[in-house]
Each structure stands twice: as C-alpha cells, then as structure tokens.
C-alpha cells in the first residue's frame, strides 16, 4: 500500500463514536486508512474487530455505522453518498452483517462537521436524537418527535436547528421495529434495504441532525478539478445511458415535474429521478410534493404485466409518499410483499386483511396496509416483518413468496426470475445469480454494472439508441478479458469473471463513496471502440484516478484493486465467523433460479431455467478465481495471507473455520 501522507487529504481524520448508554468519543480515521478506503471498508474492519458472534440486530452492542469515503463532500462527480452498515433485521434466515447505500446530502454534511463516519452503539433509555454541530455533539430528548413521520421530523428539526441542517430519521415503522424499516433523508433518499430503521428504533434513536461548517481538503486540487471535469463530461448522455432523459411537458404543467439530484454532486440529468412539486391528494386533501426515483414509480402499477394493478399516477404518488413518511422499504413492498399477497388472493388463501378487502386498484387499501405495517396493527404485525418473514410467520402461501424472494430475505432484482420489471435474459442472469449467491443482500445496490452493459445498451432494450451485440462483446472483451462474458449466444462459460469483477467494483463504490448508476464507466457512445475513457483515463479506472488525486496517495491501480479484494474477503470472513457462511449457504439461491426465466433470449427462442450441475461448476470457477476453497466456499489461509489478513486467518482457524 502507499505511504500515508503527513496530513490526511480526502478524509477529515476523525470518526465519531456515540454510545447511547455511555460516552461520546472521537477516533482517528488514520487507524483505517488507506487500506480500508472508507464507507463499506471501514465498516467491515469494525465489524470484524468489534461484533462478536452471537450479537443480534436489536442487541445494544450491534453498531449502527454511517460511513462516508474520501471522495464524499468533494467535487468528485456522483459522490454524495453514505454507506450504512449493521447487523440486519431484514436478512433471512441469518440476521447477518450487511449494508445499504443512501443518497441525499447528509454524508457530505457529516464530513463538513469534521467526521468521516459515525458509529452508534448502546441504547438510550428514552427516545433521543443526535445533534451534531461541528465538534459539538449532543444527545437530545426526542419525546416530541417520537411518533412522527420522516417528513415532519425533518421539518421540525430544520425549524429548530436551521434550514441548512441535514437529517436522517426513522418513521413509525422504525420505531415499531418493522424489519423492513428504512432510514430516510429528504423525501425519498434512504438506506432502504436491510431494516436498519429498526436498528435505529431499537436504540431509541429517532434522528441524527448534522450541521457542518468545515470542509474537505484534496491533495492535488488542480489535477482533481481537471479529472472531475473530464469525468463529469464523459459521464453524460449519450455515454451514461443511451436515451436522453426528458421531462414530460404535461407532467411539468400539471404536477411540476422536474429533474432532481438524488445525491450531492450528481451531475447528470437522471433517467430515473424526478421531483413533483404539486400532486393532488386522492385520498385526502391538498397536494403532495416529493421525489420519485428507482422503484417508487411502480406504486401506480403497470396495467399490462405482472404488477397489474392500476392506481394511476396521483394515487401511486400518494402511496409512495406515505411509505416514505412511515419509513417503509419500497422494494420489499412492491417486489416482494404485494406479489406474494396477490398470489395468496388468487389462490383463494386470503380475501382480506383484518376485514379490509384486498383491492390493489384502491388507494385506500394501500394506505390502510401501510398504516397497519407501520403501527403493527392486526395482521400488520406480521407484515411488518416484510413479505419473506410474513409468509413464514403466518404459515401462509410460502410457496408464493419463494418465487419472488431471491435470497437472504430480499426480493428479486435483475435476476430474470422474481423481478418482473428489469428485463434480463439467459445467460446474463447467471452473472447476477452469482452476485446474489455470494452477497449478503440484494447485490444490485452497487452492482448494476454488468446488467447496465449487457441489457442497458442491448438491441433488446434500446434497439435504435444502444450498441450492437458485437459492440457490447467488444466492450466485454476489454473489460472482462473475453467476449464470452457478454455474448448473448454464450452459456455458462466466462460468467464468473464479471461476477468477481463487479463484486470489487461494488466495494469500491460503497467505500469511496460514488454512485452505482454511473460507475463503473464501461460502455461509451462517443469513442471508436465504445469503451469509456476521458483524458487518457480508461473508464473503469475513473474511481482510481479520483481517489489518488483526492488523497494524494501514491497507490498503484493494482494496489487499489487489491484493497477492494481485501475488503470483500474481510466481509466474507465476518459472515463465516459470525454466521457460519459457507458454500452450502451460497447454494440456497439455486432453487430460486431453477424456475423458468421471465423473458426469452431471441437467440434461443425459448425460456431457460438454471441447470444446477452447470451452475455448481460455475460456482467452482468463482471460488477458484477468488482463491477460496471450493468445497466450503471459505477464504483460504494463502488468500488471506496474500491480502495481509493473516490475523483474520488465525482467528478463523481458532474457530475451526479455515479450510
């Protein structure tokens, strides 16, 4: 690794540790830099050092960690994100250590207050919130905030502490320990998956308000500005996505539709994110405002298709807004719980919820459902566990939750099976299937890179604006070393390579922190060979170039990738030591993928399903690429030594967990 500079650049140098049952102390970031980069890397190190086996999510000892990275709060494009890590109440069947990403402006503000991260342990006796104003940190009474939604909590704290304060908060769902409770900031940015809102609720911590008047220094400002500018220019339409995002003039006039940055330093007009300033309430009175991005447009339903309810835009917006306010996880509700409820109803297992007829075309039904979940009223007590647990708890239609929950208590995502929105075909979902098999959560939060290339640019999805298959294969050859990795006529060959590669890219994004929609930059519309590059920097090295300019570290590209692999292995070691993670665990995703796929590969002409034996061999390849033991799926002594994790190997050995 590179030598540490005398002064830290990129990082602020301090981590805040708050024990809600005890002291508030500061820790030197230098303890973790540069090797663990930031964000997810710091959290993995702390999880390994400080979470002993046997600790569960609602145990006061479970640390709730909020980490930024060396790029957060700087001019680096798409860098405003925060990684939240903890033991997860949503994860199933193991409540293991995992993470969630969050946009908004909170992470940068934490750095301006002087902190690279915040680790909360313990439990307050009464409801409290944290008020961080630069170096002044106070635990304040929150009796007046407890019971409020995420919007009003933020508005009250802004009225109290000033408009510039940035806030993360839980709604009623988090207070009542719903296992799909989110941590929310602004209207719709959230640490969504994982149920971390319930971890916050279990600590009696309602909100964390931050105001920072300091800043972040970068090591080589002129070079950094130049690189930021080049990458910003490159990562725009038509390079970052094939079709130019446009506002809908009717939606602009009627609902005040506008472009909206989900996170600080987002310099692209996003194809996903929109803000609406005035959407009339359908169920109540007045108008609602807020953001719709990612999954929430699905609340309205898609008449022709799997999600075939029809709420219409206004009611869909209102339901989405209430889900945000209660602090409930959109993805679990829309891709997991509702499809399961629909199937239960269709099979005649369930007609109503506590007397409330199941009618997905009626916004009143949706709002009543959300309220039941947030307050755990009646059947809402079980539903608050998310669709995966509710099916098991109620002993109801588990055969209908299996096809929509890919693994680990998370509903399908870009895997060709449970997720009926994101069009992906065999053999490409073999890669996402492997990503799922090896992760501790839905891997797509920072793992869209492969699907973005093979499907996002494909003649299937964007026949006129995208790339040809030959061009996608040429990009695949540059990035993955073989055309087979992105060949729609291929099968199981060369699919482990992109799964490993994107595993590391995911670590880097969550550690630096930068956005998943944009990074890593692979395909381009403006270069001759369709590989992204700018000013002599290859697209996939953009993050590296931003990191070295910001921190001033003389780290090679190989050392940077080595750091990502090291973090990936340390996370695996935490799961092995604390939760018995093994190849057997990884294989539990197979039965889900053995069902018939949702879409047809035009080169094959019929739907495919997973071939278990071939996938097992693909898993062998994956473990071999990682230097892990094929039989147990665990990191070996040699691998851990090569990653300078000898002490981790020693401890795994003591537990009898070293292959």
């Amino acid at each position, binding site marked *: 690794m590179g030598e540490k500079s005398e002064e830290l650049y990129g990082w602020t140098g301090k981590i805040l540790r708050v024990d809600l049952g005890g002291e508030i102390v500061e820790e030197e970031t230098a303890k973790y830099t540069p090797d663990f980069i930031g964000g997810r890397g710091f959290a993995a190190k702390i999880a390994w050092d400080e979470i002993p086996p046997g600790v569960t999510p609602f145990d006061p000892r479970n640390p709730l960690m909020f980490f930024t990275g060396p790029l957060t709060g*700087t001019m680096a494009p798409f860098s405003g994100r925060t990684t939240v890590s903890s033991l997860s109440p949503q994860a199933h069947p193991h409540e293991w250590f995992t993470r969630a990403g969050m946009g908004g402006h909170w992470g940068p503000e934490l750095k301006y207050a002087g902190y690279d991260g915040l680790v909360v342990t313990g439990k307050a006796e009464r409801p409290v919130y944290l008020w961080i104003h630069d170096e002044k940190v106070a635990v304040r009474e929150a009796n007046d905030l407890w019971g409020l939604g995420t919007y009003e909590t933020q508005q009250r704290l802004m009225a109290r502490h000033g408009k510039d304060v940035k806030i993360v908060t839980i709604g009623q769902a988090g207070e009542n320990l719903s296992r799909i409770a989110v941590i929310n900031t602004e209207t719709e940015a959230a640490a969504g998956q994982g149920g971390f809102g319930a971890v916050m609720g279990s600590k009696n911590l309602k909100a964390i308000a931050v105001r920072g008047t300091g800043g972040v220094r970068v090591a080589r400002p002129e070079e950094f500005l130049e690189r930021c500018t080049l990458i910003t220019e490159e990562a725009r339409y038509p390079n970052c996505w094939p079709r130019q995002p446009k506002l809908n003039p009717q939606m602009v006039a009627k609902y005040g539709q506008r472009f909206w940055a989900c996170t600080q330093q987002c310099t692209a007009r996003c194809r996903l994110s929109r803000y609406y300033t005035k959407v009339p309430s359908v169920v109540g009175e007045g108008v609602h405002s807020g953001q719709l991005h990612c999954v929430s447009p699905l609340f309205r339903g898609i008449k022709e298709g799997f999600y075939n309810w029809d709420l219409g835009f206004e009611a869909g917006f209102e339901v989405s807004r209430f889900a945000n306010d209660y602090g409930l996880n959109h993805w679990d509700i829309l891709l997991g719980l509702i499809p399961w409820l629909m199937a239960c109803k269709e099979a005649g297992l369930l007609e109503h919820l506590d007397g409330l007829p199941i009618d997905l075309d009626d916004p009143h039904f949706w709002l009543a459902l959300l309220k039941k979940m947030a307050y755990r009223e009646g059947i809402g007590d079980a539903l608050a566990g998310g669709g995966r647990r509710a099916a098991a708890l109620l002993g109801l239609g588990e055969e209908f939750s299996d096809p929509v929950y890919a693994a680990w208590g998370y509903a399908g995502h870009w895997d060709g099976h449970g997720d009926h929105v994101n069009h992906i075909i065999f053999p490409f979902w073999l890669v996402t299937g492997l990503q799922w098999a090896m992760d501790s959560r839905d891997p797509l939060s920072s793992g869209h890179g492969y699907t973005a290339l093979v499907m996002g640019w494909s003649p299937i999805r964007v026949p006129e604006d995208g790339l040809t298959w030959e061009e996608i294969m040429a990009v695949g050859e540059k990035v993955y070393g073989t055309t087979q990795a992105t060949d729609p006529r291929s099968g199981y060959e060369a699919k482990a390579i992109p799964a490993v590669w994107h595993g590391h890219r995911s670590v880097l994004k969550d550690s630096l922190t930068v956005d998943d929609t944009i990074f890593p930059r692979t395909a381009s519309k403006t270069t001759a060979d369709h590989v992204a590059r700018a000013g002599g920097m290859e697209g996939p090295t953009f993050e590296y170039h931003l990191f070295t300019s910001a921190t001033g570290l003389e780290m090679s590209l190989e050392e940077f990738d080595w750091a990502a692999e090291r973090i990936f292995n340390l996370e695996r070691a935490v799961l092995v030591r604390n939760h018995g993670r093994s190849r057997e665990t990884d294989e539990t995703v197979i039965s889900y993928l053995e069902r018939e796929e949702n879409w047809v590969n035009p080169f094959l002409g019929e739907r495919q399903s997973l071939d278990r034996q071939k996938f097992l061999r693909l898993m062998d390849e994956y473990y071999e690429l990682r230097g892990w033991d094929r039989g147990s799926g665990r990191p070996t002594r040699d691998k851990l030594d090569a990653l300078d994790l000898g002490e981790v190997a020693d401890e795994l050995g003591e537990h009898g967990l070293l292959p």
Partner: protein
Amino acid sequence: MTERKRLLFANSKACQGCLSCVVACAQRNEGMSAPSRARIHVDLEPFEGVHRLHYCLQCKAAPCAEACPVDAIHFVSKGRYWAVDYDQCIGCKQCISACPLGVMFYDPIGDKVIKCETCQGDPICARVCPTGALLWGDLAERRNYQKGG
C-alpha cells in the same frame, strides 16, 4: 474589441440541487470543499422542490461598498465585479448587514467576509453547473437562455 458585459444569471427552476457550484466555488477560492466558504449559496428545499440560489448580482451602486467604513470594497472594471481588499478590511461586517440580497457572506474558517468576485471574470460555478441553472453571459445570451434557447 470592447469587452462584453457579462453577468451571472440563475434559473432556479433548472437547479436540481447537486451543489456542484457551491463546492467548486469554495474549492477554487479557498482551496477547500466547504460550502461555508462558498460565495454562492443554494438553499435546498427538499420538501418544496424548488431550490433557491443566492449570489452577488454586482449592483451598480453597491450597498456593501457604501456601507464599508474604510472603502475596502471596490469595483474592478476589468471583469466588472466588486472585490474586497483584505489589506484594508477591518472585519466589521457592516457590508453583510447592508447587502439587501444576503449575498455578502462570512467565512467562519478564514474569519473574513467573502463575496462573489466572478472568479475574476470566469466563474467556476457556471462552468461546473451540469444543468444550465447558472449562466455566465451577456444580456442577449440571457434572453435566449430564458426562452429556453
């Protein structure tokens, strides 16, 4: 060739709240990514949806300059902006009180008043703005810009 009269224009409706302008301003002028040290501020409005941009309009008759008891704020013709002469400034902050737009700011780290000096005629905020919410241009360009040109 005569110098074009260029000014900074804002279109709040196009601002999507990325704060690129704010961070770049502080980075360029104070060597630090610190919004508290920026000469342009954006009031984020996450619940209403239209952010508000605050920056110096370079008034013809500048109340900040008039309020300054030591004449430390002077007009720079080449570039057409009001600048603070820190050799003369006594730190009384009367300029902050005098500015009707609230765009004479206090930098808590540098312990000094700061205002937009247009980066001496090439404002970085407009250069980095990804949405065209900020425009550095003359009146004709502004008219074209507001028509959506």
